[in-house]
């Protein structure tokens, strides 16, 4: 009985020590590879990063279209950044992998890309792009800008302005919040506690059954 109590008490002490360490710790990030990208016009640019800090260099970024068709690939530079020019207006899936098991994905939706890009598999990929060019060619000497041009410029500017906000959102998702940590520990200790209780009940029943005095013959 005494040893069992001591074991449980030692375990509780260890657990309490752990909890104290946690409460003193700063917010931390589980080490994870992440990708972030935005589209400005038809350029998809972004970077890969580790949620605890650090950028992977020279990592291949694969660009896949809908149904997994490969649209191209590029590499991250010294700062983990990369850029890719979209040719079609479709969902782009960006995927990176380090050699040691880390991987990350990011999706650029079709409607983040400019409307004058053709849908994938369109034969007349060049034809669509003529129309805006013609409209502005006539205005090239004058300074009037066609509505399509203006809309593209606004979309690009908006994307640039929103990017820091989206980056912040992306990063804050990764913070290993104290409530997540406590929740996880709570689950573990809770399950262990329930198991301990039920196994204990079964053991008491068993020892009571075996301790029953033998029937007088």
């Amino acid at each position, binding site marked *: 009985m005494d*040893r069992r109590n001591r074991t449980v008490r030692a375990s509780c002490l*260890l657990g309490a020590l*752990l909890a104290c360490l946690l409460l003193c710790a700063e917010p931390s990030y*589980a080490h994870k590879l992440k990708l972030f990208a935005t589209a400005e016009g038809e350029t998809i640019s972004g970077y890969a990063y580790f949620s605890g800090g*650090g950028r992977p*260099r020279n990592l291949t970024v694969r660009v896949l279209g809908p149904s997994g068709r490969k649209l191209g690939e590029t590499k991250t530079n010294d700062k983990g950044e990369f850029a890719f020019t979209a040719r079609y207006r479709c969902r782009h899936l960006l995927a990176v992998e380090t050699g040691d098991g880390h*991987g990350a994905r990011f999706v650029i939706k079709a409607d983040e890309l400019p409307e004058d890009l053709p849908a994938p598999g369109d034969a007349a990929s060049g034809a669509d792009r003529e129309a805006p060019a013609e409209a502005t060619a006539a205005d090239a000497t004058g300074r009037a800008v066609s509505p399509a041009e203006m809309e593209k410029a606004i979309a690009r500017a908006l994307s640039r302005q929103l990017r820091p906000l989206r980056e912040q959102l992306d990063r804050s998702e990764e913070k290993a919040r104290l409530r997540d940590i406590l929740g996880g520990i709570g689950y573990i200790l809770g399950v262990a506690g329930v198991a301990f209780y039920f196994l204990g009940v079964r053991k008491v029943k068993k020892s009571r059954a075996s301790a029953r005095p033998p029937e007088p013959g």
Partner: protein
Amino acid sequence: MHIADGILSGPVLIATGALAVGGVGVGLAKMDYEQVPRVGVLSAAFFVASLIGVPIGPSRAHLLLAGLIGCLLGWAALPALAGALLLQAVLFGCGGLTSLGANLLIMGLPAVACYHLFGRHIRPGASARRVFGLAFAAGTVGVGLGCVLLGVTLYASGREFIGAIGAIFIGHIPVMVIEGFVTGAALVFLHRVRPELLASPRAGAEQEE
């Protein structure tokens, strides 16, 4: 050392999943009622350990605690790590859900191996130096074996082998050293205060009867 979703091939995921389920079953069968609090606390410790990172160059590696957990739990390390890995994947996104089986084998099998290689040889009357030596070896080898298994798993999924294992191993050398000291200190302390915890993970139960 956690492998994310979408990296391993289908057959590898299925094989590791099946082996992991089997391993957890063995661990649960060998686990005694007495061990449950210990399993819970060590599982929680492992869960938190991935937040303690050692910066290595551009990335960080984190404490594994496989050696420590293995020496204290033996086969029961597998159920302990399984629960913690599941919660890490769900709450932190650290490691994938499909690759849970693979991650459990990569981090759990070295734990069991360290118990059989080192933990079992720590006798109640051993000197502190011997305990530290065995514990340091357990901590170091635990991480090392984890690196090897990680390389093997990635190789089985079609990745390059020698280069990847080399890089992973070298990258984890600082972690191996730190973990050796942490395991050493922890086990020396426990050996002095509660030697029955180390004599054998089940000795406590047997002596109770």
